[in-house]
């Protein structure tokens, strides 16, 4: 008899309730687990590019101006400083990830979203950004600009 194999105080109804509850719980888990996994987007190969050759020529970048370019799958900004230097930074604001731009009137890199200012070394100097922008290395070879990630 099945009753004899159960704990003495567990009668048939208790057993059935327990059995039903467990089965319902198992069913729920078997539904919720795949759904929760489904909702997490799969990892996409991150661009591991360490350097990029720009389609812009050095002569085309005006003094005291900036330009957005693609570094892998991330936006970056090339700045021609008033001192004549070419510099490049990540263009993703460290505050809430908007894309920054160069403001020639104040010679700052600036984020329009929450009015964050960075100086020409990428350092956060005013507004809400908590960290500086990542700086890249700019090399000019003839009429080509090559931007590298720092080692």
């Amino acid at each position, binding site marked *: 008899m099945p009753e004899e194999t159960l704990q003495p105080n567990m009668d048939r109804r208790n057993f059935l309730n327990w059995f039903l509850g467990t089965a319902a719980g198992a069913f729920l888990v078997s539904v919720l687990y795949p759904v929760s996994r489904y909702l*997490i*987007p799969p990892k996409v190969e991150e661009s591991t590019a360490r350097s990029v050759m720009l389609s812009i020529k050095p002569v085309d970048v005006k003094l005291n101006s900036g330009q957005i370019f693609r570094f892998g799958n991330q*936006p970056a900004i090339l700045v021609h400083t008033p001192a004549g230097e070419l510099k490049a930074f990540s263009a993703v604001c460290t505050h*809430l990830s*908007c*894309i920054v731009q160069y403001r020639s009137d104040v010679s700052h890199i600036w984020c*329009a979203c*929450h009015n964050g200012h960075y100086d020409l070394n990428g350092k956060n100097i005013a507004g*809400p950004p908590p960290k500086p922008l990542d700086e890249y290395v700019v090399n000019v070879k003839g009429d080509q600009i090559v931007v590298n990630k720092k080692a």
Partner: protein
Amino acid sequence: MEPQDAKHGKLWTWLDERVGLKELDKLAKKKQVPVHRHSVWYYFGGMTLFLFTIQVATGILLLLYYRPSSGEAYESVQFLMTEVQFGWLVRSLHAWSANLMIFTLFVHLFSTLMLRAYRRPRELTWLSGAGLMALTMAFGFTGYLLPWNKLAFFATSVGTDIPGVFPVVGPFLRRLLRGGDEVTGATLTRFYGIHVAVLPLIVTLLLGLHLFFVQKHGMSVPPEVEREGGGKRVMPFLPNFLLRDAVGWLAALGVLAALAAFYPAELGEKADPFQPAPIGIKPEWYFMFMFQTLKLLPSHILGIEGELVGILAFGLGGAFLAAIPFLDRRTARGETNRLFSWIALAIILYMLVLTYLGYTMSATK
């Protein structure tokens, strides 16, 4: 046939046997609405509901032309606005009705707060209402992205980055919301699904619950009116109050039609993930006070990142708002409690001032 059925036709009797019209009739005749000097605030809930039905109807119409992909979304809305007959009207109605609905929802919320309608036994009515407000804002946030224009792109980029500032779970939450590490076409399809299927389902359920509570408890008479011995005068819901309600709906419809006709919804430029955020970027007006607060916070407060402090504060503010019926012990005991009126006024004032600053402060200074 019973004598009182004689005045009804055969169809009524047929339906009554199957549906139970007699009970419904009794229920409708019993339903009354108190009349007092604050009765006017009763109309804003109904107006919000009316605007919600407009959202459902126009939303279904928009679905017929909209294409949820980063390559086609902007173009499909452009096509809708320029080629489809009355397409501009349907989209403008949807956009304006959303704004008006959030406005009437805020009025409804703050009037029930000021008039203490949340007190026993209506705590769950308040909680379901607070939930509906959160869902409505989620509606606004997800819908804003769908035209895939520049403003929407950056507003979403900022909005979905916000959960990312939390330590440990932040980056995971951000990925879950965006459907990837950045705002892309994957985010668009995700938001589309949430906007047209997930939220409508949850809102319908919660709204049903909210209306059930309202029906069960009837309209609340403000305690100060009760203390003065007022609020005993009533009007029947059917047809007196419903007809007055209909006047409110008609007024809302008039304002909506005028706004949609004279200020059609704009589309702007197509989103480009490799362009800087446009100058003067701003969210919808009902997020403006939060946006402006984030803008004014310094980068670090007591060693913690400013945005984290701001977002935690808003989270606590929301939790406080939802918990008010359980915190306001004095009103629950039937005593006067000015404190919560002052808190409500302070919240309204804060929202108004920050919103005003958001629209008037120079974008570049």
